[in-house]
């Protein structure tokens, strides 16, 4: 019976029930209870396809449970729990409802067994999540939200177009492994790519995650991109092009992250880079690689949320998340600092932290399949991650020069949420087998070998060394109040400028044209009035004689016509 109820509906129902509960602790508690129940539900679901609905001539599979979907659904429920715990203090109905709908849609999408159901939830995540950005309630947030929405819904419409094409081609809407080839599959691929923040399609991520509310960013960071990773893993595992896309994805954001001032934006870049690892894993497509992707997604959601939570806490207390404004906060926010460091260690893949046991699966897989250059890039990226997320974030927020800010330690519920996330990150790092048991395929991988531990430590420590040397020599770029151009420049600057220019020209031409015609028409009317108006020659009272003249003329013509013919 229970398996006939899609997990997503739990969240939707809760979103409705929410209105019946007055704002306050009871409501916040409900927000915590729902993900727990959902997690239990996911955990107890047997494998198979359930909740099939006949709809519009299709059979929709609302609940396809297998190992791949389960692991993603599980981490999504955990992320929802952490996010809601972190947002315990929020008394904004819009954000609460949005969080529930967003998490529900994401989980629903993961369990979707067909492309149409996927599309429904795909758009659901887009719509629900934008409220987390708008909820900041500023002009900038509104505009960012609009950009985000257009991109996200754009991804959805590309998806539905692709689905329609696939449907007409194959007659099926099943969401199974696809091969790139037809236009339809390419569109679906593109749609996934937008949400997965493929290079050049990535900038919505940095743009929006740094604009959302303190709590909103935490929730945003978990779902959308990982949903895309899941969809790629389901639909395009082993697609070679993904390896290269992924490699580029790991690479370029780190450069931006180094020079970025807004720490939440730095985290967004690093998120982008982490997605690259997962995409490479999908591209490699072996069991090991896919396991790596799933595991990395799982671990990533936790530590990335942790990082966003810690910076969020700083923002919550100081009103800014910019490196140039912060520094020296370790004095008064030591716990937050420690949690941040844990997150940093996890993302940097220090041994005993979660990143270490998940990322290495992907690296090994790529090396194993002989993608050496990709492997080298990933290695570089790993070092780079440590550099900006592992060191830069904690360093500039909590150490560096003293900003003079002495904010109070983060509120207790935030600390609690960070504590959970930190504990899980460490637990996974220490006991990887529990995570491995959840993965889609059987794992025969041992992360803790001497070689692995030592080489990883070498990589990280020498990166740290480089950082220390560069900072001490003053080569390291200081944090500056600035923004950096990225691909969003094209649609925030270039295209609007072009449109304004074109519009000017077009409206000018239009005006000239319509003026021309208006003048023509007006003069025609006035000429008509001149001749046909009451005073006009044609409508005037003619003397009787002229009438006779007309008769004569007409008679003449008639006679001529008659005689000629």
């Amino acid at each position, binding site marked *: 019976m229970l398996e006939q109820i899609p997990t997503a509906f739990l969240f939707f129902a809760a979103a409705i029930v929410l209105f019946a509960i007055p704002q306050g602790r009871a409501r916040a508690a409900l927000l915590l209870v729902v993900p727990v129940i959902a997690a239990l539900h996911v955990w107890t679901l047997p494998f198979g396809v359930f909740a099939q609905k*006949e*709809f*519009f*001539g299709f059979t929709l599979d609302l609940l396809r449970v297998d190992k791949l979907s389960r692991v993603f659904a599980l981490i999504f429920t955990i992320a929802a729990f952490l996010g809601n715990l972190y947002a315990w203090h929020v008394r904004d109905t*819009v954000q609460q409802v949005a969080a529930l709908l967003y998490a529900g849609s994401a989980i629903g999408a993961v369990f979707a067994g067909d492309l149409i159901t996927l*599309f*429904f939830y795909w*758009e*659901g995540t887009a*719509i629900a999540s*934008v*409220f987390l950005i*708008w*909820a*900041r*309630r500023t*002009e900038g*947030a*509104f505009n960012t*939200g*609009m950009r985000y*929405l*257009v991109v996200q*819904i*754009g991804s*959805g*419409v*590309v998806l*539905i*177009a692709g689905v*329609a*094409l696939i*449907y*007409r081609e194959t007659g099926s809407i099943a969401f199974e492994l696809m091969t790139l080839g037809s*236009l339809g599959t390419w569109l679906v691929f593109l749609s996934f790519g937008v949400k997965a923040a493929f290079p050049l399609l990535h900038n919505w991520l940095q743009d929006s995650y740094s604009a959302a509310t303190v709590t909103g960013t935490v929730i945003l960071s978990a779902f959308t991109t990982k949903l895309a990773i899941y969809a790629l893993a389901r639909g395009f595992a082993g697609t070679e092009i993904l390896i290269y896309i992924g490699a580029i994805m790991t690479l370029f954001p780190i450069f931006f992250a180094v020079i970025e001032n807004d720490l939440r934006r730095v985290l967004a870049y690093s998120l982008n880079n982490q997605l690259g690892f997962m995409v490479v894993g999908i591209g490699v497509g072996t069991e090991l690689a896919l396991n790596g992707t799933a595991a990395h997604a799982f671990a990533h959601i936790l530590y990335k949320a942790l990082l966003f939570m810690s910076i969020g806490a700083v923002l919550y207390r100081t009103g800014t998340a910019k490196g140039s404004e912060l520094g020296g906060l370790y004095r008064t926010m030591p716990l937050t600092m420690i949690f941040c460091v844990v997150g940093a260690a996890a993302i940097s893949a220090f041994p005993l932290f979660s990143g270490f046991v998940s990322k290495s699966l992907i690296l090994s897989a790529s090396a194993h399949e002989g993608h050496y250059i990709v492997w080298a890039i990933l290695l570089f990226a790993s070092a780079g991650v440590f550099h900006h997320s592992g060191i830069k974030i904690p360093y500039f927020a909590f150490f560096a020069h003293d900003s003079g800010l002495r904010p109070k330690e983060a509120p207790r519920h935030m600390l609690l949420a960070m504590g959970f996330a930190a504990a899980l990150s460490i637990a996974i790092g220490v006991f990887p087998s529990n995570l491995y048991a959840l993965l889609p395929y059987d794992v025969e991988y041992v992360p803790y070998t001497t070689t692995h531990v030592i080489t990883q430590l070498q990589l990280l420590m020498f990166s740290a060394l480089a950082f220390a040397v560069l900072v001490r020599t003053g080569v390291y770029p200081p944090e500056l109040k600035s923004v950096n151009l990225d691909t969003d420049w094209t649609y925030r600057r270039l295209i609007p400028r072009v449109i304004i220019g074109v519009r000017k020209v077009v409206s000018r031409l239009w005006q000239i044209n319509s003026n021309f015609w208006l003048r023509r028409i007006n003069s025609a009317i006035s000429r008509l009035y001149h001749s046909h108006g009451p005073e006009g020659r044609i409508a005037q009272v003619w003397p009787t004689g002229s009438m006779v003249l007309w008769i004569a003329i007409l008679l003449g013509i008639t006679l001529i016509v008659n005689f000629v013919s």
Partner: protein
Amino acid sequence: MIVETNTAILLTMLIPAGAMVTNLVFRNRPDLRDGLTLAAAVATFITVLTILSNVGNGTTEPLVMFEVFPGLDLAFNVEPLGLLFAIVASGLWIITHLYGIGYMRGNNEDNHPRFFASFSLAISAVMGIAFASNMFTLFIFYEILTLSTYPLVAHKGTPEAIRGARTYLGILLGTSIGLQLLAVIWTYSITGTLDFTKGGILEGHIAGPAVAVLLALYAFGIGKAALMPFHRWLPAAMVAPTPVSALLHAVAVVKAGVFTMLKVGIYIFGIDFLAESGASEWLMWLAAYSIIAASVVAMTKDNLKARLAYSTISQLSYITLGMALATSMGALGGGMHIAMHAMGKITLFMAAGSIYVATHKTNISQMNGLGKIMPITYGAFFIGALSIIGLPPLGGSWSKWLLIVGAADTQQWVMIGVLMASSLLNVAYLLPIIGRGFFSPLPEGSPTKISESPLLVWLPPAITAFGTIVLFFYAGTLQEFLSPIVSGN
């Protein structure tokens, strides 16, 4: 079988006509007048449902009233597309009438009897269009609809209203007399009939470029479909009170236009004939242009109703596009979009009216933060907007799906692109209203407590918003219902 089908068809026209009379007779007794009209609306709806239960999605033999010209009768019959149109229009009439009472009283508008009388007559004409069994009959009611809505547009009597009404009438009468009439007579003179026939009547009577010319006469002649460049009447008509914009310019009048368009495509030309002759290719491109261009214009409009009007122009072209694709899926999608768009757009208009009644604001730029004090209105607007965009779980997503599938069938990749782009443009011009409504700060001196418009004003949009959700879940039924129009020519 409560009432015989043929009687019921006549009743659907006579009851609203009767309502017109009662409105004029009881001009000085508002409650009685409005009550009777409401009763008429309900009765009309029930009558249409009776027809539905009698006929289902079948087609009946024409009921001939007069023979006007040899072979040309004033005649009515039931077929799925028309029945759907009738159900939509009569059902929404009830809601709009409630809304209209609330709106007109809430706004202290004048000339209620004339307003509601014209309104009822317009519904009567819509029923005539829906059940017309040949192009001739349809044309007659098409014109009656134009004329009966003219007083509604000119209602306020201000110079602006008069100008708007002139544009309205000028374009609608101009296109219908200047082009559509020619097309109809041309069709009649080459085929000797104008009966709506499955598979069309033109095949074998006309060939070559003439087909495209004839189609052009129809496409532009059906001005109510607001195909560019004959779209200006629609924004001009927005000077009318909002109930008019809601029912007539989101549902009845414009849908009469695209309904006629579909009828012409399916029953006069025939989809297969259109596809073979390729005559509708240009129309497809023009519709695509209309879709995009109107959306772009909509973005530049600050007046909410004007923006919605341009959005309507864009959405109507979806239906034209569906017909012009000349595939069964496209036509089906077009047919479904009549219902889906009706429900969504009426919600938007009624919400716009609700904002106006409560705050007297017409421009989007003044509507910052109103969502907080009018949550139901804005919630309804949000749902309606999502349906227009074509997002699940709202009705609009299905018709769009069918249109995309239709385009896929003919390998019109560009059309798929247009539909996609249009969704994004819809997002760009509809959702900012929501974003700003809920999240921008209220201007100084606004009420801080929830202050919705009167019950009769906010409830109807809430109902229709719910309707868009219901339509999503019953879209399959709807598709099955419509399927006879494209199957087995």
